[in-house]
């Protein structure tokens, strides 16, 4: 993926990234800032067309955004002018689902994300964590095959974040959706990735891929229990120092 900024020149945001997601997979992508993780997600979502290479879903090429690839954004992507219920029902309404069906779906999904009864509330009446629950419910209401998450918990406080991690795991296990999650938190990437892709910057590329047991262990169990495992700590330190080195390299190469 080449970007040509208005000032001239070209920035190679991604090079030779190859990623294969099986149905029902849970993949987290981690990397230092500027490694192209968001670009990667935008290409998968269809918001950007790659300069080279292709994305395909079930053998069909991806040419633009579509409801089969749902997206949960970091924050501020909810529609403030709609109630919680209307936000969740947005996808079905766009494709013309009947009202009764929408209502039932909204009720079920709000219950899933722990917001039963919050339907008539306005978005701005909810806390940041609750808003992300709505975003997750809205994405699921579109019944996507793949759920793309762009640092969905990045703006939340530590406690809310931990609760939400449990929710994401639970939803993944209960719905069987394929999940591709981008994060800058090592712990989150370890926990929310059966497969963890570490990316390196300049140009953005896949640095290493881990197969991890934590997501399966944590689904339905105590998250902190999993985080206390020796292997978890070992992997965390390993990946942290890996990213740390990359950041150092970036800083050394930076020209003022």
């Amino acid at each position: 993926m080449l970007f040509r900024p208005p000032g001239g020149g070209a920035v190679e945001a991604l090079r030779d990234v190859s990623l294969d997601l099986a149905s029902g997979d849970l993949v987290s992508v981690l990397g230092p800032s500027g490694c192209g993780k968001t670009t990667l997600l935008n290409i998968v979502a269809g918001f950007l067309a790659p300069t080279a290479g292709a994305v395909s879903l079930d053998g069909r090429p991806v040419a633009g955004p579509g409801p089969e690839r749902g997206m949960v954004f970091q924050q501020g992507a909810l529609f403030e002018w709609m109630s919680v219920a209307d936000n969740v029902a947005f996808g079905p309404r766009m494709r013309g689902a009947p009202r009764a069906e929408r209502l039932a779906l909204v009720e079920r999904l709000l219950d899933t994300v722990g917001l039963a009864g919050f339907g008539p509330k306005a978005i701005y009446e909810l806390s940041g964590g609750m808003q992300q629950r709505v975003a997750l419910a809205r994405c699921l209401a579109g019944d996507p095959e793949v759920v793309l998450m762009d640092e969905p918990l990045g703006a939340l406080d530590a406690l809310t974040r931990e609760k939400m991690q449990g929710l994401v795991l639970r939803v993944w296990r209960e719905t069987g959706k394929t999940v591709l999650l981008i994060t800058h938190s090592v712990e989150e990437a370890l926990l929310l990735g059966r497969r963890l892709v570490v990316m390196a910057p300049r140009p953005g590329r896949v640095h290493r891929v881990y197969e991890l047991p934590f997501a399966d262990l944590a689904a339905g169990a105590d998250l902190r229990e999993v985080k206390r495992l020796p292997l978890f700590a070992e992997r965390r330190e390993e990946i942290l120092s890996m990213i740390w080195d990359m950041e150092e390299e970036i800083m050394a190469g930076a020209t003022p």
Partner: protein
Amino acid sequence: MSGLAGEALEVLWGALGVLPWVGAYLLLVALLGLLWRALGRGRGDAARRTVTFGDAGAVRGSPAAAVLSVVAVFLLWASFTGSALVPSWLRAPDAFTGTGRFAYLAELPDGSRDEGTVTVLVAPPGESPPAPEVAPGAGAVPDAAVVVNAHRSVLVPPPEGARVLAVEGQAVAPGGPPVALPWGAVSLTARGTLQVTPDPGWRMEPIWLPPPEAVAARLGEVARDGYRNASLLEHLSYSIFRVVTGFLLGALVGIPLGYAMGLSGWFRGWFDPVVEFMRPVPPLALIPLVIIWAGIGEGGKVILLFLASLWIMAIAARAGVSGVRLSKVHAAYSLGASRLQVLRHVVVPNSLPDIFTGARVAMGVCWGTVVAAELVAADRGAGMMIMAASKFQQTDVVLMGIALIGLIGWGIDLLMRAAERALVPWKGRA
């Protein structure tokens, strides 16, 4: 250019003359504030907070101060117009009315000196009683009588060829300082004529500033009988009708124009020069052109107000569209929305808060513009009413009109704010 400098100097001097009054007023405001605080009312819930000065974000207008300030305006108004609404001890001293007398010493051409007495009857404003009868007396300088209205002065010429030397025993010179009397002052003009100025008191003449009750009475009268061939309601509704029509037309054209400019680079490029050029042109500057094109009828005024609101609404809509977060648009597309659905469900609602802000500004500008346009040329309307009244020096009608214009402008803004709260409750809270 020297004329400009002279004007500037004059303005500066005028401002300096007002300064003591402004200072006294501010001192009164500050003292009342201190008094209120001493009474322990100024703190309220914030009493536990130790940092109070500098926390400007937490400053809320004191309701007591607001009430007192309005009361003070009316009190000052009533006091300096001698209103019957306030007790007499609160009224400023009135101008002198009644009979005053002074004696003056004059030297005749033959060198002899004689003293004459002048009786001055000071009549209330608007009255013109006959001069009192006075016997001329025996001397070479006859006694005389004159009539003058309060707030005015009168010239009393001495006998032909005589030169006035003193008034009430005090020496006077042509053009010199006046001699103070208990009921006024007497001076000599440069040509040696006696000028009698009765004490004007501290009150304003009704022609400058009528008392509140006169304005209220006039309001009742105009509301009952109308003014200049139209009822009060008709005058006001004409102005409001023009504003609403012009504003709606401006919004009807301006909002789609702003959307087009916000959504398409080609349209933005095409219309930007026009919009950016027309925006800083004050609508008032368009009045002559609109009169040339459309005359002084309703059409001209509606065109003027259309032009006043068009650019504001176009810019507001453009800003509202441009302010949409890309992630919202992305979210809508990945939920399966079509372009039209994104426009209808994301771009348009997202622009509403900005459009409401623009509408409030546009309504304010339109109201100001319509009054100004009616001042220039109209046969009905709030602005026409006060302009016509000023030509006949009906200051009470002018004041009444200004008060009504202010109240309506305020009411329009309150309505717009209420509509904003009802229709875009998420504004500023996302």
